């Protein structure tokens, strides 16, 4: 059976009506572009950190909490994360000419396996090229961490994935560590890569 629908002929739109519609579309495209720019400027905004004593200049994400009181040069954490606080940490260790990357990684593994639950290395001694073409060595690992609530908040432990980038500069070894919730690790790694791009020592 064939159904024939009889409808009124569609009313022709005037030129002015068409242009009204086109202007809305143009405005929408421009506004969305502005929105993306606003997002980028907020999400990728950085704050400089300079330590002339160690000889480091870095740009860490805006709104991350910086801490320089620990046994590291500095550490920044994203406190807005609801789970494990994504962390970037920079450490400088004095070394002798005979010290190798393997020595330092073994030392890190020994220390961490005593203080971190279920600490396991995924890879170590992997060659890593820093953005300024400087050669470095990487070690990636996982452990079970808490979400930072301490004794005041009930929280379920989370799997944390991390990577250490180790490079030598004179008689110093520089270790740049990145830690994130394993579920968000790949997504947040881009932040770390941007951090490395601007890192100078």
């Amino acid at each position, binding site marked *: 059976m064939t159904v024939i629908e009889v409808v*009124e002929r*569609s*009313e022709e*739109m005037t030129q*002015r*009506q068409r*242009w*009204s*519609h086109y*202007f*809305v579309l*143009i*405005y*929408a495209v421009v*506004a*969305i572009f*502005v*929105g*993306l720019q*606003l*997002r980028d400027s*907020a*999400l990728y905004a950085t704050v400089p950190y300079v330590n002339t004593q160690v000889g480091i200049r870095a740009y860490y994400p805006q*709104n991350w909490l910086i801490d320089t009181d620990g046994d590291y040069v500095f550490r920044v954490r994203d406190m*807005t994360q609801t789970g494990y606080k994504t962390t970037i940490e920079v450490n400088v260790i004095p070394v002798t000419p005979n010290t190798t990357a393997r020595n330092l990684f073994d030392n890190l593994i020994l220390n961490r396996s005593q203080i971190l639950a279920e600490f396991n290395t995924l890879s170590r001694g992997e060659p890593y090229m820093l953005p300024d073409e400087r050669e470095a060595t990487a070690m990636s690992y996982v452990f079970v961490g808490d979400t930072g609530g301490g004794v005041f908040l009930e929280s379920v432990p989370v799997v944390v994935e991390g990577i250490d980038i180790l490079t030598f500069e004179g008689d110093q070894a520089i270790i740049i560590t990145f830690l994130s919730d394993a579920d968000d690790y790949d997504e947040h790694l881009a932040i770390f890569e941007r951090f490395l791009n601007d890192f100078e020592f």
Partner: protein
Amino acid sequence: MSTNSYRLITPPEEEDIYPYRRVWQSIAIESGFMLAVAGGAFVVFSVLDVRLPRPLAQPVNVLFALLPLGLWLIFSLWRERLALQPRARLLAVAVISALVASGVSIPFIEGVFQPERWLPTASAINRIVGYTFTVGIVQEVLKYLVVRYLVFPDLFRTRLDAVAYCAASAVGYATMVNLQFVLSNAALPDIVAMQVFGTLAINLSGSILVSYGMAEVRFDNPSPFLLTITVALAALVNGVVIPIRDGLVNAGFSLRGGTSSPILGLGLSAGFLIAVVVVVSFLYTNTERREREAAAAREV
């Protein structure tokens, strides 16, 4: 002798029968009912501290989320069928707006703009600008496009048809946003009821503003920028109301401690909706009066 006295009597005036559903009345009833429900939920669940059994909480929240759609089906769609000249495709506009919200708008806002990652920590001005150019613009442009391609200009017979179709789009869109909120958050019923009203109020305010632009473009010969200005204003309403309402509903952190004022957030949403309805209905009345006067002048 009988005397017949004849008297001249004024013939009864023929009442003008309004052949369409009265749109402002429907919007007032639906919004008023929803506001009363949200206020009632606040009193019951927050002031009287009534606690629902856990298995009942989620169904009640879903009911709250669906309530605006239910009210619209009764007071708009059903009453439309009783009108002499009902508007066609109202349900289609609402359903397609809901699908657009679910399939395009919400994924785009959450996946691309990710406002929750950067706007809550921004300054007040940045939040207003940010919400305007992200959530606001996406919502208002998509709702406009649904009405534009489904019913404009053929099914616009009177100016108020624009309000009816844009309101249908707003209700469909808001329902999907509210359902998504309810299904992804285990919030208390009073918070859900107020959130539902807030989303409905923002969407209705924006759509009513856009409806004025569409009606003018359809029946008058305005500047080609007028429609764009109404869409931009609608996006700005989103940008202003969302951060202020969230600031009132969520307690801030300070050394003096923080207190939330959800009832003020509810009042703000209602106030904005009433202000937009009053201003836009005044504009409609004014335009129609000028149109009648112009027609009368032509006849003379």
